[in-house]
């Protein structure tokens, strides 16, 4: 299915009243861009609910929601999109959420797909995702996330991935070839702030906001696999590892690797035995020491379901915010990986792979 870019629809008077407080933040032009954007969200988890909420409230035009799985009992009472007075376990995740989302913002057109799209062939996936303004995939395995990212990267479709592991969660961004409002640096400080060589500079008109000048610039982003397989072994990298790799990164990487090998059984005790050597390897590869890690294997049960709702809220909020920034070609996004750990209250962004 391809979605043709329809002619720009203007924001109505009634929408203006509802969106007042956000238009005052990101401006009318940005609101119009949102109003004409088509968003794909794959994964109807608690994190999915947070992302769908933020983008629906922001006022996107179309939201396509994909998940083929049925609602589980444990999700009732935790996912705010479900009405607990009906039997949700006979519904797939987004179908159970439809009523809430429809009422949340009636200006947003909802399309629910009860299909395991990621199990299809690359060609089928490719033809499905083309035409979306942004593709967001949540709580998926390493392999399936990397596969979807490779397709989106090829066509320069804005891409976001994210997952929650109990109390810890990550978000990954690939906005390759898309532009952002970038502050025009003072020429005198140019030497200190040169952009990386691989950044294609595509300057357009300069806008002035409160004495600061901005211009649209496009940036190149690495793929999901490149970002999560950074080589920390070079001499140069070794020296800065302690400064640039947050300790929560090793937890995320461990969980991603475990999902790749499908080596997890669901039995927490057994799984911690599997996870510990992977984690140790990742920590040492990252030139950190095991003893200095604030979260040790005795807390690894906190990397297991149920999703810790505050972590979903923080990761979901960041994903929503960054999605809005790229759709509206607004101010610069944070780096390409963001990790929140409720275990030590840290929310850190990093740029991987290390250059």
């Amino acid at each position: 299915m391809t979605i043709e870019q329809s002619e720009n629809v203007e924001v109505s008077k009634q929408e203006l009243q509802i969106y007042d407080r956000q238009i005052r933040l990101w401006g009318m032009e940005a609101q119009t861009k949102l109003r004409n954007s088509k968003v794909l969200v794959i994964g109807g988890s608690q994190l999915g609910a947070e992302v769908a909420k933020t983008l629906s409230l922001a006022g996107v035009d179309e939201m396509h929601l994909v998940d083929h799985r049925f609602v589980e009992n444990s999700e009732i009472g935790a996912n705010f999109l479900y009405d607990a007075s009906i039997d949700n376990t006979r519904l797939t995740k987004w179908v159970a959420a439809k009523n809430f989302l429809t009422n949340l913002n009636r200006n947003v057109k909802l399309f629910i797909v009860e299909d395991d799209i990621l199990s299809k062939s690359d060609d089928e996936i490719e033809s499905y995702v083309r035409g979306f303004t942004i593709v967001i995939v949540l709580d998926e395995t390493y392999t399936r996330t990397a596969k979807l990212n490779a397709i989106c990267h090829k066509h320069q479709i804005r891409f976001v991935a994210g997952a929650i592991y109990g109390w810890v969660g990550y978000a990954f961004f690939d906005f390759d070839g898309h532009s952002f409002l970038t502050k025009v640096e003072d020429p005198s400080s140019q030497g200190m702030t040169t952009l990386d060589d691989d950044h294609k500079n595509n300057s357009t008109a300069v806008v002035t906001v409160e004495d600061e000048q901005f211009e649209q610039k496009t940036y190149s982003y690495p793929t999901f696999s490149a970002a999560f397989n950074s080589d920390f072994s070079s001499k140069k990298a070794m020296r800065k590892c302690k400064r640039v790799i947050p300790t929560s990164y090793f937890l995320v990487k461990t969980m991603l690797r475990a999902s790749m090998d499908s080596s997890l059984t669901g039995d927490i005790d057994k799984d911690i035995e599997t996870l510990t050597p992977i984690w140790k390897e990742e920590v040492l590869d990252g030139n950190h020491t095991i003893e200095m890690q604030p979260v040790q294997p005795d807390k690894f049960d906190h990397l297991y379901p149920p999703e810790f709702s505050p972590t979903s809220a923080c990761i979901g909020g960041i994903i929503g915010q960054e999605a809005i920034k790229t759709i509206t070609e607004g101010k610069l996004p944070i780096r390409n990986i963001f990790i929140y750990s409720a275990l030590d209250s840290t929310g850190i962004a990093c740029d991987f792979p290390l250059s």
Partner: protein
Amino acid sequence: MPSWKEKHGKIQTTKLLVVGAGGIGCELLKNLAATGFQNVHVIDLDTIDISNLNRQFLFRKEHVSSSKAEIATKVVKQFCPSINLGFDHASIFEEEFNVEFFKKFDMVLNALDNKKARNHVNRMCHAANKPLIESGSSGYFGQVQVIMRGKTECYECQEKPASQKTFPGCTIRNTPSEHIHCTVWAKHVFNQLFGEVDIDDDVSPDMEAEDTENPNETGNSQDDEAAKEPAPIGTRKWAESVNFDAAKVFDKLFFQDIQYLVKMDHLWKQRKPPTPLSFAVATTTGESLSFADAQNKDTSIWSIATCANVFAGCVRELLKEIKLNPDVTLSFDKDHPIIMAFVAACANVRAHLFSIHTKTMFEIKAMAGNIIPAIASTNAIVAGMIVTEAVKMIDGNADVKSSFIRNQPNPRGKKLSLNRLFQIFLEGAPYPPNPKCYVCSETREVFIYVNPAEMTVGALRDKVLMQELNMLQPDVMDTNTANVVLSSDGDTDSLLPKKLSEISIEDGAILTCDDFMQDMVLKLFIRRANHLRGDNFEIARSDKEKDEEEARKKEQEKHRLEEAENKEKLETDHKSEEEERRKRKVDEKESSEEPDVKRTKVEEKTGGEENENKILAME
């Protein structure tokens, strides 16, 4: 091994009070229910407005004008029926929410949008000895502060910046240079004509005002004498005398008054004087939209003719409204379409006369209504961080953090910034209490600089104790004479109009101020400041003179120490210097490992505080 939930069993038994069911409140209630909290009570006096719907996701269009606390409670129970969630659609200042009420909970979570209520809850939690998590958001920026009595700073340990900027009266009345000055003036015009008249809000030229920017220029030249006529008469009275004839009122505000202003030529030596504009001329300046069309075009710039048209239309409509409800006093309301249109038209005409760029009604509304931009994602993150810290606190985890969300991401590809961790959430241990805090310290002292011959007891109560120090029902006693100065039961109302000096409150007096509701007693030290007129006052958290004296002493002491050190240095031999140098080298080596992060943290912390100061108001 069972799931992590088993290790955090207290989540189910802890009793929480949530104050506020707005932007952060909706997200907070959702997170609490989803995390498994079972006992929650929420208080909010507000009703739902259409402009809340972009972020307060528990509310729908059909809920507009309903109670926020009630709807939020209902909607949360829809997805989580097992929660024991109660609500009050009431003000947190109500007497029923006394210290005993606060004691029923294990912890209090603030999701408020104003300083007054935040101060009050801070005091109630202090009195009830309950931990409090304080929060706020503004655009992309947010913060969470953990407050524990005796262990951390309280909400009032540091002075907070005023939530609304004020401008000198003469700038507003005589020499506006920015659109905001015209907007403030236009709000005053509205109050003078249709609302509650406040003598501080005079809109006519201030004939006696000196030029604040050029204070040497006096206003007493001969030409200015001419400007002093005619004797100013109340704007409302004058408008009544011409039956609120729109053209006449317009001419008075924008022609006659401006003529007087122009004559005060000391004001215009370094500025461009304004141009008087009559209603007749205004209506032909540019294409004019009809009154109804103009109101719908709130995101485009109105021509001056349109402004004049809107002005006349609004005067007509507001007059009708006043006549219909003679007992009701209108007050400025940014969401009242006619009032807002009137203020926008007035502000733009004045801006035009003073050669200031005119703005759209949409933009003027933000200035006039002090609107803070707000989005769902920031509130979601703030609420997430609140619950994370709440869970840690009830688990007895000492490692609680106060956090800021950094609103200025660094550009991707900036090589310098690649060298360190990039914290989006700047977390840090909460600061220790301020030993001089007048709310949570043992001292509890405030110094006030006033002119006792001019300030009244009533002003002391309303402006100092209630407005500035946020007390609700202060009882005040003069410690020297044991006289009761103010009694919250009204026994001392006869004293209210008296000047402080008339009841022998002079320089050096110490007043004990007691608020029963907040369970707070503080000492108010009176200091004479003769230059202050009327009810004006300055407030200080410590004695200015004593501070200066101490600073002087410290400086002297430092000087002495330095001299002594210098002497010592001269005596120190070469060898020890060598040693010192070697030591420093080792330090440097060590510091290239870890400390970069530490140093960064310190830097960023100060950054965060600066940000905090920039927040005007929060959700």
